[in-house]
């Protein structure tokens, strides 16, 4: 048992570490910048002052390209990890996530449809992609749940995950089909299937930030219920949690987080499994800490993966979904197998 003081130190160290990672991700790349210049640029934009002797070109590269890109990666990584952490507790399965439940692939299909048919909302065109992502993500998880209920009266969590995988693969198949039928959009659709943060702007950050903040805060408010629900529906109900209502709230909020993220960046796997898992190893299973820390760790992990994606074979970019899988899968397998051996 770790004492409360050590726990607090761990939390503070993690937050500081993750900010450092974010700074590293902004700084690293083909264009060099000194740390002091970086601070000057950020400070000047935050306060509205002149950045002084920093070249305008450098300023523009950093402020309009790298900072929003790194922030988007951080927010998306955080949002996916939080929704993963919630799904895992809710379904009492460490392999549950928005990805395995089909929310991610559904959301990417939603984004694809918007792109192909150039759909747009009449009032706020910027919101079209995230809304489509959220709606389709929710629709997919809805289909998964209805099918699971049909097949298995008890709606056991293994059934839900199996059906989720099947539906997810099916939706990916539809994506592939669309990409073939509409070759003009092939490149864009390919990006949505594998994930990318390239050319993300402040507009994306402006939408992602409030959504991530609100979603994560709502989920933190229900962390106590989530703890109880990780003992299963029956025990949760007998302790006094309205598990049906809670499940709906948490799945909808997680779908918003995933849907909006995926609609902007495409399907990115593994971060939602690996980050919450690592967080539980460090801080224990209490959701009141697991949720916020998953955001911090998942965000930092994603920012690092994006750094690798754009630098390893620069100037070409590796899809970030491939990086998270290449880095995350062996790591996850290692942790999982080691635990198995221990228990």
């Amino acid at each position: 048992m770790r004492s409360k003081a050590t726990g607090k130190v761990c939390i503070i160290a993690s937050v500081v570490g993750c900010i450092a990672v974010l700074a590293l991700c902004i700084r690293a790349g083909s264009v060099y910048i000194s740390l002091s210049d970086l601070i000057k640029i950020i400070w000047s934009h935050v306060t509205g002052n002149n950045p002084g002797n920093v070249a305008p070109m450098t300023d523009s590269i950093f402020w309009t390209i790298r900072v929003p890109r790194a922030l988007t990666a951080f927010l998306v990584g955080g949002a996916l990890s939080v929704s993963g952490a919630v799904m895992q507790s809710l379904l009492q399965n460490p392999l549950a996530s928005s990805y395995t439940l089909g929310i991610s692939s559904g959301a990417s299909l939603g984004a694809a449809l918007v792109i192909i048919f150039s759909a747009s909302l009449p009032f706020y065109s910027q919101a079209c992609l995230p809304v489509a992502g959220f709606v389709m993500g929710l629709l997919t998880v809805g289909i998964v749940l209805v099918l699971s209920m049909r097949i298995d009266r008890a709606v056991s969590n293994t059934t839900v995950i199996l059906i989720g995988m099947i539906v997810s693969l099916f939706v990916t198949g539809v994506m592939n089909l669309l990409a073939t039928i509409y070759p003009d959009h092939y490149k864009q659709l390919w990006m949505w299937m594998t994930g990318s943060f390239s050319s993300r702007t402040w507009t994306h950050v402006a939408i992602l930030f409030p959504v991530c903040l609100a979603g994560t805060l709502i989920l933190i408010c229900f962390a106590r219920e989530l703890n109880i629900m990780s003992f299963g529906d029956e025990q949760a109900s007998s302790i006094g949690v309205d598990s049906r209502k809670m499940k709906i709230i948490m799945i909808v909020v997680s779908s918003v987080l995933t849907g909006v993220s995926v609609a902007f960046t495409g399907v990115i796997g593994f971060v939602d499994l690996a980050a919450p898992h690592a967080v539980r190893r460090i801080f224990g299973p209490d959701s009141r800490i697991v949720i916020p820390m998953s955001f911090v760790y998942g965000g930092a992990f994603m920012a690092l993966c994006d750094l690798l994606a754009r630098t390893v074979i620069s100037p070409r970019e590796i899809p970030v979904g491939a990086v998270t899988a290449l880095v995350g899968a062996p790591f996850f397998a290692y942790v999982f197998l080691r635990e198995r051996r221990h228990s």
Partner: protein
Amino acid sequence: MMDIVLENVTAGYGFTPVLDSISLKISEGERVLVAGTNGSGKTTLLRVIARLLPFDGRVTYGTSDSGSIRRKELASVVSYMPQNGETYFDYTVEQTVMLGRYSHMTGLLASPGSEDRKIAAEAMNRCGVYELRYRALNELSGGQLQRTFLARAFAQQTPFMLLDEPENNLDVRHNSELTDYLNEWASGTTELAGASVHNTVVAVMHDLGQASLCLERVIALDKGIVAYDGSINDMVATGRISDIFGFDVTGYKRRESKLWNLCK
């Protein structure tokens, strides 16, 4: 008077009902054993009373109807200890027992106060898991896990306790301590909405000898209906017990007790 009343309750898991139109009343202060063969509907009965299963018919808790009572409210009247509780995640014993205080905490982000800690500590103490409070659940033996869930049910502080095979996995000493604690608890009262209600136990147990040390009334189920409802002593004295289980229980128990006659 706080009673739980079941009227024409039918419940089950598939198309065949496990409980078939059962009606019964459990009054506050009673100590009830639910007996019967495997699959006779004992667990289903407890789950219906705890409203963990959809059912036809009516269940009332005092003046509240099962259809209208809210989850949290019900959790302050009835606590339920399932046969096998577990979770994948590494919660500690203390964290697990503390979850039983949920229905007593109000407010969105409320965390356990000193009163909650005191009650949880007392429950852990009485169930013999206080020393294990910082251990993770997956490091516990079956019996220790059982006592942890028992402690959580006690920490919930409800006047009605539903226990599904609480003696499972317990060694003989902890079984004896459980019997003592149940006796002590059942003779007390619990505050509920300003009134004090006599504590009530409804337990599924397989060892009738042990059950008779802390329980009095027996509801015996057979194929989904109440086959016997009366005192445990009468059920044994009249030999009805052998009908219910469909074999010579008395003869078997006599042979079994020969071991204890060896004690001088």
